[in-house]
């Protein structure tokens, strides 16, 4: 067994896992689904680490494996749940996947900007985003805690996502060499 290879693989797995997760969630925008697929993908990657060629881009390789899991997942989901969730059709998904992989560097840069943009939110706004995305509580529970109707919370989160998106865009554009 090539121990150096294994070590290299482990490092790349750890550092690249957030990008693989993002890729999956971009194709399947539901968190629970994405996590299930991510877990399956992680297992497959660990089983197949010996096949990994260190010369190759790890994230691309891992996303290829993730994509297969996405396809299987959606197929099974449609069989079992008969359209309980809405997924993009396979050809659109393929095109989105390509765009996402090609823009990988930009997306990484945006992720860094997200961090700063989150810090710019008011405390209460940030807390709301954190609660909503932590996934510990249902949205109507969070709404109740904050004395809001679920609809108002829904709209608030939408506004917050929008302002985060705008902030990221500004920040990335500002950092652009002229």
């Amino acid at each position, binding site marked *: 067994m090539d121990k150096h290879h294994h070590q290299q693989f482990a490092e790349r797995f750890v550092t690249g896992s*957030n990008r693989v997760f993002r890729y999956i969630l*971009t194709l399947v925008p539901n968190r629970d689904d994405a996590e299930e697929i991510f877990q399956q993908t992680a297992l497959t990657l660990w089983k197949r680490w010996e096949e990994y060629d260190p010369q190759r881009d790890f994230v691309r390789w891992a996303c290829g494996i993730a994509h297969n899991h996405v396809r299987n997942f959606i197929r099974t989901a449609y069989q079992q749940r008969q359209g309980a969730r809405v997924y993009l059709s396979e050809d659109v998904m393929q095109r989105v996947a390509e765009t996402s992989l090609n823009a990988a560097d930009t997306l990484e840069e945006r992720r860094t900007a997200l961090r700063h943009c989150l810090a710019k939110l008011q405390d209460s706004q940030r807390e709301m985003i954190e609660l909503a995305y932590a996934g510990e509580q249902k949205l109507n529970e969070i709404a109740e805690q904050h004395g809001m109707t679920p609809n108002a919370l829904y709209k608030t989160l939408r506004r917050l996502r929008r302002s985060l998106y705008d902030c990221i865009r500004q920040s990335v*554009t500002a950092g652009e060499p002229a």
Partner: protein
Amino acid sequence: MTDRPHIHGEPSEELFDLVDRLCAGDLDDAGRQRLEQLLNASEQARLFYAEYVGMHADLHWRMRAGIMPAIPAETASASGTYALDTPVAGRIGSSTSKSAWRRWAIAAAVALVAGVTLVAQFNRGPVASDTELAAPPTPIATLTDAVDAVWDDAQAPTTADVGTSLDAGRMALRSGRAQMLLGRGAVITVVGPADWQMTDDNTCTLRHGKLLAYVPHSAAGFTLHTPGMKIVDRGTRFGVIVDENGKSEVHVLEGRVDVDAGDDRRASLHAGQAIDDRTGDKLNEGFADGARFADITASGDQVLASFKFDDAGSIRTLGGGQPTIDADSLTQPLVRSSAGSLRLGGTTGVTNAFVDLDVSRSGPFAAAGYIAGNGRIGATGTTLYISWLSRFELHPGGGLGSVGLSLFDAGDDLAANEPLFVGKASALQQLSHARTPDGDVVIDADPSTPEIDAIDAMTDRATHLWVVRIDFRSGNDRIQLYLDPAEGDPGHVSPNAVIESADLTFDRLRFAANAGNGAVYDEVRIGTTWRAVVPGR
């Protein structure tokens, strides 16, 4: 930085609406069809989609992980991830107090970990003392440090090497200083000229000279006799000076001691108080003068902060909710727990809890020299140890969320204030992380083999002891992580991870158990030495 595709125009409101509804789980079939049309028609639309849903994904990842995901692999791979510790021998030899303490710790490790017993012979002179008791047949202490020590020939250990085991008996120093680790865990440092005797593994007599005692929990009840006093320690740090006339003064630097001077002259002293029997029949009370012991304390074992979670007093939670204190404490061979532990996640409703550290100018970190220019912990040139117990109870459905302890700096914000996370990162069952904003490091279960060994500590539902050593340096700091270490010096066992990708300061700790996972934390200690945070058996 060219050829980076990004959108120059605003996305249409319709596209924004559809994509956001998709993220919110609120898109119907008609909406999906329309979205597919738009995505099929334009690369710009697809890029907006990738950016917006990518942000949605990053938010999920970030909240699950409890911290911002790491920066690109290129930087992390240069982090010195799996380097084993520098050989200890290469770091011994200078006469600084630091290296003296390293020798001390090495000696302790030799005696305690390897089980090596070096029987010392004493050249005992005639002793006329009513305090001398029958010596037990086994060594009761270890000589853990000797700096410029000139021993009185008649009262010296035959081998004055650090690491030598010491029997009960009388010792005398003409000058310099010596330090001994008693069997129950008390550490005494004596400055010559001094004459003293260790009678058993938790009792000493000081005839004259200066002595500083650090008494960890395991050695509470440590007793020091002077010609006029009996001083019983209640878990603390105190100094005693006995002059040539046999008069004593006691200075309590931490905790509490009870003093009995006979004839119903008793006193209970708290940190900051002092007492002496130098004049008259009464005990004279005063203020403790730590400066009298500055030559010793500079390198002592000190617990600077500890959290036992016997109650919820000092705990703050993020997002509301009351922290849950379990009546049961965690237990681990090297760390004695008090009642109570902090439970998070699972059904408690609280997933993030914070404790604040006293970084004020009068606080313990300032007194020990750990406060950096920014007013938080991390002064360059210092070394700090943090230990804690934890038990992870991962969600049976997969345990995707992160579980672990973090250092936070100047705020509670998950995105901006978390320089270090240690635990099970999100989504990874077997591998655990030590994570900094600039890179991730895998924790290797068995650092004695070259490969990265999967770690059971994440999934075995057992209690584990974690120890983090931080060497604050100019530039990036060096962080070493130990999982269930053996007793003794960290230089003797390989760390399970080494992190050199962060230049950090901090002022609070965060405990987390996210996404349905549960975790129990207990016995958090921050101290100046390994021994301060891992008191041992």
